[in-house]
Each structure stands twice: as structure tokens, then as C-alpha cells.
């Protein structure tokens, strides 16, 4: 945190106008208060990443327990219920608490830098998203720490098919936690996504036209659209489920005429776009890394962008491919099967263009590049098993078998996680000013790569050999023993790989040597600024002349220098760099939401016992939230101005610049 907090900050600040106490704006630039009140997109992004990685380790630990249980037939490392909790929480954690926020971390840190902005459009809303995400994460996980008969961790599977989630079959509050937690995560994601959309559309530096945006920014934009358009569906589904559980409505209640199949539709209307929410940022990252290390622009930029958009759009038209076995009728099944196959085309286009990018380049085999190449290979395999699923009759044999588990881990780990790990390595020098050792980076890559394939490749065979998923045990005579054993060993190797990866990252963060500016000889704007990035990002808002803006600048030095000097003058005349004030109220509002949600999840459909504290808790939380939001709106979106002196060092106020 150090590296971030102590960024190169030499400036004179204007003091804030006098204000009543509650509207006083926090000014801490380090320490706990700073982290709680920060509106700096880089710090918020860092926190997102930090929490996400913690949850990734938690989810990974759960996965290792799952694999340990399945190592041998009929083992009893876990009880049935523990196992069911484990995979439910593993899926939920990995998807909502690890990969999505890790994506959000990159959106936050990198996207504004790539478009030449000083912050996101709504800095406090950004903080609110972060803290609401934390509230959701707490609620989803809180059940682990409560007695498991009446509370407990969720155990209805990550897509919580009704009616297994109804009060009748799942009376414990575990399911209420799951519902409420997901609800909050949805709110957080939508708020963040709206922010990113406005930022990308409206905060671009001059000259940064839409068709000059780095592909990662494009993918951020498309992902954000997917979020705001798909999350409402699950929000409604969860509201309906909550109403069923707390107020006795009949949405999924068969005795009242409800149709549980409706849940599946609503869930997957969200769920399929969700998987593209997980993969598109990854594709964006890879589309940044490959050109950089091939020393060539991305091959077929417009087509890559367009294919991303069409993947996003088509993603809304294929949800029922998760429901091929629910008896939709032949026509509907056929329609969804064909629509699903169509997605192979835009996805293929991306793969081809990545290969085109490599073609004729000078490939530098650095760690990020290794992960990016690994991504292409692994994602291709995952995509192909996806295509096998899309052939609906064949899927009747594969659905809910380990073949699906293999498919989605290839796209999720081999896809999303590989690319995210690549991204961490790639942008680490920028964010922290330190570089991870190539040796340890590559070693971790190989261990992860081998561990991953050893874990999940055999699972294809398990699935085709009839092993159902979500089973805590199996008989020894089914022909599944060897594959399960290998898979478990693989997962340990994978775990060791991950361990190496993260230990090395943390080590570098603490002890690594400082490195210079623009280590990779990058192509996009984020590399044009010092590392770690100063609070204000850009001394002068850059003017963009070409697609790989920084590359262009590097090759047109004089022209740019002249231009920048002019801009700097203009900006100084305008009062200097405008920076938003920090604020505690987003945190207060989210905290209120957390309290209220805990209260609400504790309601029973027959609210007699303990109704007072539950109601009290909910109301208190509601009031805290309201106060937070109200004061937030009252304090206004003001800020202060920074005046950088000419060379951005040796300012009048702080005579001694820190040595680097």
C-alpha cells in the first residue's frame, strides 16, 4: 500500500472552504482513514484487487478441499453437507468475489490511465461500489461463522435452482445470505459499471476517438454494458425468491401454481452474459499484452472490437443452452443451439487476430506474454468443449457431468484467470514501480500451466464416462478412480503454482527493486506516466494522435513536447489540476446497507421470534444508509486544485523531493 500511497506528489494544494462539521472533507493521504475515504481510482482499484485475491485464495482453498474429498472413491474428508457448501461457495466466491472484482480492479486502475483521464466520472460512486461489494462479500460468507443448523453457509449450488432454495427445502438462513449477498454484489457491480460507461464515453482525452480506444477499454465498455443489462434479471429473480421465502409469495411455489423453471430462465438470462462478463476483460488484457510483446500493433483492431461487441450482444440470446435438458421443446432447443454456435465466429475472429498479431513480430517471451499465450491455447480448448455443449442432443449426455466442469474451468481458469494473472504481471511495474522476477514468474507459469491441465483435462473423460458433478462421493467400480486421483494431484500442483505466483508478487511488492519508467516499451497511454502513477495521473492531459497513443508519442517526440507545453500553460491558466475531495459517505452508506441486509436476512416468513432486533437492525441500517447518501449529496462534488510547478519536482512547499 506504501508504494501507492507515497506516489510522487509534489504540489501546492488549495485549502477547502470552511464547512459545517458533517460536511468536512477528509484530507488524509495515507493510513486507514485514507483507504476508507479515498476516491482515487487507483487506490480503489488496488483495494478491489486486494480483496479479490484474498477471495481467490479462499475459493481456491475450497476447491482443494473438494478435490481432496474426491481423490478416492467413498472418502469422508467432508460430509455431504459440507461438500455441498464447499462447491456452492467455491463457485459463488470464484465468480462473484474473485474474477469479477479482479476485473473491476483492472478497469479502475488501468482504464482511466489508458484514456488519458484523471479519474473516473463519479469518484465517490466508485468508492460506494467498492464498499458495497465488500458488504455483499461479507454477507455471502458470514454463514461459515454461524451455527449451521439455523444459519450456515449457502449450499444450494451457485445457480440456486428453485425449488431447492425455497423455505420448504432449505429452511436455514444460509440461502437468505446467498440471496442478499448476491443482491448487494449486483448493486455494486451495476453502480461500478455505470460509472465506467460514463467515464469511457465522456472522459476521453482530446483526440481519443472511440476507434482509438485501447482494446482493453473497449472490452471494459462492453463488459459494463453486459453488467448493467444482465444484472437486473438476477436482481428480479432474487427479489422474487426473497419474497417467496420471507413473505410467502408463490413465484416458485408449486402448490400455488408457481413454475420453478422460471427461476432458471431468469437466472440464465443473467448467467450467460455473466460468463462473458468474466471473459471479455480477459480478452481485453490479452489484446494489450500480445501487441506489446510482439512489438506490433494489434492485428485487425476494428474487427477485434466489433467481435467483442457481437459476443456481448449474442450473449443475450443464448441463455437457454444451460437448459437443454429441461424439455424446452425441440424448436426452442434448436434455436438456442444454433444461436450458441454463432458465438464461435466472433470468438474465433479474436483468436485469429491474436495469432495475426504474433505473426511477423519480435516476440519477447516475458512472463505476461507466457500467460497470454497460455490463455490462447487454454481458452481455445475451453471454447471447443463449449461448442460440443452447444450441440444440444450431445449436451443431454454432458450437462451436469464433469464434462461441463472441465469446459468451464478451461474457459474460467485457462481463460479468465490466466489473462488476469498475465495482467497482474504486466501492469505490476506500472502500479508499484517494481518488477517481478522473470525467473519466478515463468516458473509459476509452468507449474500453474501443468497443474491446471493435469487437473482439468482428465475431467473431460470423467464426464464422458458418466460422472455427475456436485457429487460428494462415488463408487469405486465406475471407472472414475484414476482420473479423479490424477485430477486431485493436478490441483495440488496448481495450488503450489498459485502459491509461488502470489508469494513472488508479495515479495516483489515488499522487497523488489524500483525500476524505471515504461519497462515493457509499452504502446498505450498508461505507460507515458511515471510509476507509481501520481495522484493526478497526467501532468498534462495528453492529446491523442493515433491508436497506440504512447507509441506514437515516442516516435514523434518534438511534436508532442511542444504540444504538451502549450496544454500545460492552458491548464495552469484554468486554475491547475482539479482533484476531487475524499469522502467518508460512500463508506457510511455501504455500511448502512450491510447492517440493514443482515437484519433483513434474519427475517423468517413467520417473523414472531426476535422480530424486534431484526426490524431494529434493518431500520438502523436503512437510516445509516439514508444519512450517508444524503450527506454525500449535500457535501457536493467539489475538489481542490493542484498546481504543479514546471518540472513537477521541487515544489515550494516540500523542498526535498524523495529520491528514487
Amino acid at each position, binding site marked *: 500500500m506504501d508504494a501507492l500511497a507515497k506516489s510522487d506528489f509534489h504540489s501546492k494544494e488549495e485549502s477547502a472552504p470552511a464547512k459545517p462539521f458533517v460536511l468536512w472533507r477528509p484530507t488524509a493521504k495515507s493510513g486507514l482513514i485514507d483507504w476508507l475515504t479515498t476516491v482515487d481510482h487507483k487506490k480503489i482499484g488496488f483495494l478491489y484487487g486486494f480483496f479479490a485475491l484474498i477471495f481467490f485464495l479462499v475459493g481456491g482453498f475450497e476447491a482443494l478441499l473438494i478435490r481432496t474429498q474426491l481423490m478416492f472413491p467413498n472418502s469422508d474428508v467432508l460430509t455431504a453437507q459440507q461438500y455441498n457448501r464447499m462447491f456452492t461457495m467455491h463457485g459463488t466466491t470464484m465468480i462473484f468475489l474473485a474474477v469479477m472484482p479482479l476485473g473491476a480492479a483492472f478497469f479502475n486502475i488501468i482504464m482511466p490511465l489508458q484514456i488519458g483521464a484523471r479519474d473516473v466520472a463519479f469518484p465517490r460512486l466508485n468508492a460506494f461500489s467498492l464498499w458495497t461489494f465488500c458488504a455483499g462479500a461479507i454477507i455471502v460468507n458470514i454463514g461459515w461463522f454461524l451455527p449451521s443448523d439455523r444459519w450456515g453457509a449457502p449450499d444450494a449450488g451457485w445457480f440456486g435452482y428453485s425449488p431447492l432454495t425455497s423455505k420448504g427445502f432449505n429452511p436455514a438462513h444460509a440461502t437468505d445470505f446467498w440471496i442478499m449477498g448476491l443482491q448487494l454484489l449486483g448493486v455494486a457491480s451495476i453502480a461500478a459499471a455505470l460509472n465506467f460507461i460514463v467515464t469511457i464515453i465522456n472522459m476521453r482525452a482530446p483526440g481519443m476517438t472511440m476507434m482509438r480506444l485501447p482494446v482493453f477499454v473497449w472490452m471494459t465498455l462492453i463488459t459494463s454494458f453486459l453488467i448493467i443489462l444482465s444484472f437486473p434479471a438476477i436482481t428480479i429473480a432474487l427479489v422474487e425468491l426473497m419474497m417467496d421465502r420471507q413473505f410467502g409469495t408463490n413465484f416458485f411455489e408449486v402448490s400455488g401454481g408457481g413454475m420453478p423453471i422460471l427461476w432458471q430462465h431468469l437466472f440464465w438470462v443473467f448467467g450467460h452474459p455473466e460468463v462473458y462478463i468474466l471473459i471479455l476483460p480477459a480478452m481485453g488484457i490479452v489484446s494489450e499484452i500480445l501487441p506489446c510483446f510482439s512489438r506490433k500493433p494489434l492485428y485487425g483492431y476494428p474487427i477485434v472490437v466489433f467481435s467483442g461487441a457481437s459476443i456481448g450482444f449474442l450473449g*443475450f440470446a443464448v441463455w437457454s443452452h444451460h437448459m437443454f435438458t429441461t424439455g424446452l421443446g425441440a424448436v426452442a432447443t434448436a434455436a438456442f443451439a444454433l444461436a450458441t454456435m454463432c458465438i464461435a465466429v466472433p470468438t474465433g475472429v479474436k483468436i485469429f487476430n491474436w495469432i495475426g498479431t504474433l505473426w511477423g513480430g519480435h516476440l519477447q517471451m516475458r512472463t505476461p506474454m507466457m500467460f497470454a499465450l497460455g490463455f490462447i491455447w487454454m481458452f481455445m480448448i475451453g471454447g471447443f468443449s463449449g461448442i460440443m455443449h452447444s450441440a444440444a442432443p450431445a449436451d443431454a449426455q454432458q450437462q451436469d457431468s464433469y464434462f461441463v466442469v472441465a469446459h468451464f474451468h478451461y474457459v474460467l481458469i485457462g481463460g479468465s484467470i490466466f489473462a488476469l494473472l498475465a495482467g497482474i504481471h504486466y501492469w505490476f511495474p506500472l502500479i508499484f514501480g517494481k518488477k517481478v522476477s522473470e525467473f519466478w514468474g515463468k516458473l509459476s507459469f509452468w507449474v500453474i500451466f501443468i497443474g491446471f491441465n493435469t487437473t482439468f483435462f482428465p475431467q473431460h473423460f470423467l464426464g464422458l464416462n458418466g460422472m455427475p458433478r456436485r457429487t460428494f462421493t462415488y463408487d469405486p467400480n465406475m471407472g472414475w478412480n484414476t482420473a479423479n486421483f490424477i485430477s486431485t494431484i493436478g490441483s495440488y500442483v496448481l495450488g503450489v503454482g498459485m502459491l509461488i505466483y502470489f508469494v513472488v508478487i508479495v515479495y516483489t511488492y515488499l522487497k523488489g527493486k524500483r525500476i524505471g519508467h515504461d519497462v515493457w516499451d509499452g504502446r498505450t497511454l498508461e505507460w507515458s506516466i511515471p510509476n507509481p502513477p501520481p495522484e493526478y495521473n497526467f501532468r498534462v492531459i495528453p492529446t491523442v494522435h493515433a491508436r497506440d497513443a504512447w507509441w506514437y508519442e515516442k516516435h514523434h517526440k518534438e511534436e508532442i513536447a511542444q504540444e504538451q507545453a502549450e496544454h500545460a500553460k492552458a491548464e495552469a491558466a484554468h486554475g491547475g489540476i482539479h482533484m476531487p475531495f475524499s469522502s467518508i459517505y460512500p463508506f457510511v452508506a455501504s455500511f448502512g446497507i450491510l447492517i440493514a441486509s443482515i437484519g433483513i436476512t434474519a427475517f423468517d416468513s413467520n417473523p414472531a421470534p426476535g422480530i424486534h432486533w431484526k426490524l431494529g437492525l434493518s431500520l438502523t441500517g436503512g437510516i445509516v444508509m439514508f444519512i450517508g447518501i444524503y450527506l454525500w449529496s449535500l457535501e457536493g462534488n467539489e475538489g481542490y486544485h493542484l498546481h504543479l510547478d514546471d518540472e513537477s519536482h521541487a515544489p515550494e512547499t516540500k523542498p526535498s523531493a524523495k529520491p528514487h
Partner: protein
Amino acid sequence: MNSPATTAVAHDHGHDESKFHIYVQIAMLLAVITGVEIIAIYLPFAKWMIVTGLVVLSTVKFMFVIFYFMHLRWDKPFCTILFFIGLVLAGGTMWALLQLFAVEASLPLPT
């Protein structure tokens, strides 16, 4: 309490002065359409005709509100595009869902 500086109304936008009247007229129109809708349901025409009529009338109302009250008509087209992405996807999803539940395979069990 308007400060003197701001009382001078902009003259570069021809529509500004007349907006008040446009709004009132549109509101009247919307009220009338609503009235027509209410009467329509009691008319002795074929059901499909009335349904079509209702859908058309509601769409007209919808469009008037978003393009006039919500300014889309005068705003940058990007706002319209943005909103219509959501509208079209939502409409498409609704259509698909209703279609899926209308097919024979999806009929609930007879009770």
C-alpha cells in the same frame, strides 16, 4: 430568487420559449390517448384489433414521453442509442420469454 445574470434567456435556441406550450400540448395529447385506450377496451371489435390498437397507442405515448419530456429529440443521438440498447434487449428478452412459455412443452401440469 434568480440572480439578474441568469434572467436573460438564451436566444440561440429557437425551441426554448415554445417548450412550455409543447409540453402542455403533449400532456393533453397523452391524456386523450389514455382516454381512447380506456374506451377501446369496451369496443365491440375483434380482440386482435383492439390489442394491436392498444399496443400502438401505448407505444405512441411511450415515444412522446421519451422524445419530448425526456428531451431525446433535442439531445445528442447517443442518449437515444444508449437507452434503446436497453429497451431493445429488454423487449427482446420479454418476447423470447413469453414465446418460450407459450409453447406446448412449457405448459404447467394440469392440476
